[in-house]
């Protein structure tokens, strides 16, 4: 049962290693979005600090969406997805493996590179740590909700844009509280705990439901 999980996880990571460029692209895109704003907005420290939380999160949302399109469609086109569906193990577990791989390849790198944002936007150390923590909790939600949309749009023409259209509005709560936590951490004497708890709750909720919903969506899509 769990073995399908490991097989798929290992395979997806192996495939990504074969084309290391993919990971770098997501990272690079993130950095470009991040660095474009100081160019446009100017370098006033106050303004930069103000927009940093939002910009970081939006860059993360968009970067995560970029790779989403291929999450299932590569497997769909070459017939591997049928193999996965017909494998003698729960589809939702295989799906979880794919989601985890997606997060490891697009979410985690963002968490690791996010201190760069702190540098660009003159953020205090404490805020940078909060930012990393919040990204760590929040980005899995992006992968998990994204998987649902990716499964629904499987094999459709113009899938890439459609998937983003479906998924971006759903990301809003993560965006609001993720950015909220970072902004709050820059204020004196306000606790960020409520934000973190909310994000954790989203994350757990998504983890429980999304593999299952994605599996149902996949079955509908390959029929």
């Amino acid at each position, binding site marked *: 049962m769990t073995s399908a999980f490991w097989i798929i996880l290992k395979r997806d990571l192996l495939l990504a290693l074969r084309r290391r460029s993919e990971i770098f692209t997501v990272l690079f895109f993130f950095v470009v979005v991040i660095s474009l704003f100081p160019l446009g907005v100017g370098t006033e420290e106050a303004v930069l600090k103000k927009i940093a939380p939002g910009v970081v999160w939006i860059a993360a949302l968009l970067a995560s969406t970029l790779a989403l399109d291929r999450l299932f469609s590569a497997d769909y086109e070459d017939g591997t997805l049928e193999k996965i569906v017909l494998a003698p193990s729960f589809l939702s577990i295989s799906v979880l493996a794919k989601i985890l791989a997606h997060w490891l390849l697009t979410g985690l790198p963002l968490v690791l590179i996010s201190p760069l944002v702190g540098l660009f936007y003159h953020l205090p150390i404490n805020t940078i740590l909060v930012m990393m923590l919040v990204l760590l909790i929040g980005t899995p939600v992006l992968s998990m909700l994204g998987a649902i949309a990716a499964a629904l749009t499987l094999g*459709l023409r113009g899938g890439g844009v459609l998937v983003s*259209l479906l998924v971006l509005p759903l990301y809003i709560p993560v965006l609001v509280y993720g950015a909220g936590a970072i902004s709050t951490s820059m204020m004196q004497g306000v606790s960020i705990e409520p934000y973190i708890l909310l994000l954790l709750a989203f994350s757990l909720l998504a983890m429980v439901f999304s593999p299952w919903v994605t599996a149902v969506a996949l079955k509908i899509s390959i029929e």
Partner: protein
Amino acid sequence: MKINWFKYSAPMSFYPLAGKLIPLFWIAAIVCIAGGLYWGFFKTADVLNDQKQYYRIIYVHVASAWMAMWLYAVMVFWAMLGLIFNTRLSYMLASATAITGTVMTVIALATGAIWGKTSWGTYWDWDPKLTSFLILLFVYIGYIALQSAIDDKRRSDKASALLALVGLALVPIIYYAVNCPDPTECASLHQESSLKRVESNILIGMLVTTLGFWMYSFATTLMRARIIILERERSTTWVSKLAEITNSERKH
């Protein structure tokens, strides 16, 4: 008289039934909208002094805003019914509802924006309620886009129904997030507070117009459902025996 619901869940029997109901809903819609607006424009002059004349936008604004939200619930209801019982008619009604819901959302946004220009001096502001409505529009559009991107009807029915369900789970969370960006305190929802402030005289006009919009939604939804049925069942014998299909054929 006992209605056999199961019978009417077949497109074949639903089609003529809807055909009979549509004119009734049209009459009700026109009467209610005209009546509500008449009341609103001619019977409330004393309530609205010159400074607040713009308040009359409320009749269409609130009616469409309410219908926009209500129709989303209706759409999800049909989608859920479809997923549970796998009845084709439910899916058809769900997709028929979605477009009217989108139209209502657009009307609410447009009239709201115009109102905003009169009272705030700007067409758009990132007030929580306006933002939630914009997001509602996106959700509707996502549903429609997904549906029209899939050719296979069975797949598009099920996939979009699933999307609507996911939306149902997430829309309250999104609404909460937009309204309470700071989890320790929420921005005041202007809906409740404002409804209390509304004069009962205006309230009557508002409610009657809303009822009219609702009837309008019934009518357009049924019309669209009939079109969808025709489209999907075009090669069946019952469709080819319909009066509207056979009648003018003799002329040719």
